[in-house]
């Protein structure tokens, strides 16, 4: 081994020199140059949006001369919708109870979609005929207008937790299946050759090559699915009257009386923020999971 070590210093020099990635260093300094640039444009956009809201509400106010049917002003949404923050019967707190139900439903549905979706994608990846057999139905699950099959689902699954779960899974599973399948199938041909040379079994190939390689695509699918899951949970609230009720129910009820409409807005804002938070949390988890090895991880939000 003495022979192999005599050149170590020069090797080290030759290798560590191009081992550092200069491109990445530039990128990093470029990003930190002005953090405000990331926040100023969306903030301005928000002000424009508020302006339009105020203008529109003001118009309605003038015409109607009283507030019936009118759109509440943003500050009224804060004052009469969100406040008080912590009261048993008014303001934010009751809505949070409904949001909690939505959260549990969404996460359960997303979890089921991930487990089932990955399993289906794996089966489709193992056999071309399975892929051909399943794919049309996956597309149907995606394209059938969900509201059109809600009555049917009621007949089959009742009106409680189970049917809500089915609605969420129907919407969320498609992106999981297609993205995971794409990830499984995009394993490098030379990597497959490497596994062939080492006489790897189909199972080993799946576990050690295809599945790990599919994680980034799978996570992309999960992020898309999370949006669909939230929609499914809210839609179910609008349609099904039994079982534990989520934020959609709250929104629907608060729409009915003009005096409660600021609360309706509060519920809508909560539901929207919930969707955004889901999206961000999944992005964060993805980044943590694959940043060591995947190129795109660094740039994702």
């Amino acid at each position, binding site marked *: *081994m003495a*022979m*192999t*070590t005599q*050149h*170590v210093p*020069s*090797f*080290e020099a*030759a*290798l*560590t020199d*191009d*081992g550092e*990635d200069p491109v990445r260093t530039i990128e990093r300094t470029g990003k930190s140059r002005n953090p405000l640039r990331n926040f100023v444009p969306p903030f301005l956009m928000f002000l424009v949006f508020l302006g339009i809201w105020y203008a529109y509400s003001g118009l309605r106010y003038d015409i109607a001369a009283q507030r019936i049917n009118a759109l509440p002003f943003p500050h009224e949404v804060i004052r009469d919708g969100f406040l008080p923050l912590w009261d048993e019967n008014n303001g934010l707190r009751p809505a949070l109870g409904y949001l909690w139900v939505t959260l549990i439903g969404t996460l359960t549905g997303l979890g089921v979609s991930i487990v089932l979706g990955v399993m289906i994608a794996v089966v489709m990846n193992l056999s071309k005929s399975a892929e051909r057999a399943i794919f049309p139905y996956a597309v149907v699950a995606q394209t059938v207008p969900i509201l059109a099959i809600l009555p049917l689902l009621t007949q089959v699954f009742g009106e409680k937790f189970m049917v809500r779960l089915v609605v969420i899974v129907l919407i969320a599973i498609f992106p999981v299946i297609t993205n995971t399948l794409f990830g499984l199938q995009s394993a*490098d041909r*030379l*990597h497959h*050759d*490497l*596994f*062939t*040379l*080492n*006489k*790897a079994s189909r199972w*080993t190939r799946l576990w*050690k*090559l295809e599945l*790990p*390689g599919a*994680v980034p695509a799978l996570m992309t699918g999960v992020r898309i699915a999370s949006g669909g899951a939230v929609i499914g949970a809210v839609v179910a609230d609008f349609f099904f009257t039994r079982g534990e009720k989520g934020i959609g129910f709250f929104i629907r009820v608060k729409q009915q009386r003009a005096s409660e409409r600021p609360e309706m807005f509060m519920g809508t804002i909560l539901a929207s923020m919930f969707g955004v938070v889901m999206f961000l949390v999944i992005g964060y988890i993805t980044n943590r999971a*694959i940043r*060591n*090895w*995947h*190129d795109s991880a660094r740039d994702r939000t």
Partner: protein
Amino acid sequence: MMTDPGTAAPTSGSGAPRLKFQNVSMVFPDGTHALDDVSFNVAPGEFVTVVGPSGCGKSTLLRIASGLTPHTSGVCEVDRGSIGYVFQDATLLPWRTVQRNVELNAELHGMPKAERQAKATDAIKLVNLVGHEKKFPKQLSGGMKMRTSLARSLVLNPKVFLFDEPFGALDEITREFLNDELIRLFQHEQFAGLFITHSISEAVFLSTRVLVMSARPGRIIGDYQVPFGADRPHDLRFDPAFAELCGRISNDLKDAH
């Protein structure tokens, strides 16, 4: 091990050939005629390099030798018990660290964990990657990736070692360092080596024998024993005899098109 550069004796293989090509031809299903009547042997301790214009069937030759692609006629006998194959690309799994990548082949062969870890540690030493074990491929330079790839094959102590332009994408300095390194590995392991390159000086520097291939369909149109001993010092590249041999091969290649 043969160690007499002075006498300029060709390093010839010892023992029965581990890799035999007899009149091997390859026609792909789409009609592409990739190889035509190729015959040669590689014995343990022999390092045979094939040079030829791109697209002439060099990679196909290696894929046939490894069993990845079945050939269409002729006889190809290879001791496939333990085969090393280094691709043009390092083909590391990006989600595995250097250490875990080096363990991969052994892992796929079902070698127990403790044993493969110990062997990986040895191989990492052999290719001078100590200290980089915990890095991911993304953090490595091209040369370091190739060393990791080499180490991954070394763990199984291959009796037949196939190289498909492994250093083709590297700069010349890194390539020469890795060539020196490979010479040492070869002296250490005494495998039967079959190496593909488009660099004539790399071919002459590394091998005991150089084969020149014609444009498609690939035929062997030149066959040179390399008259340098097993020790290949770095400055052999400046030897007039070295340049002369490179010149002859280069002439053959000119006719290859």
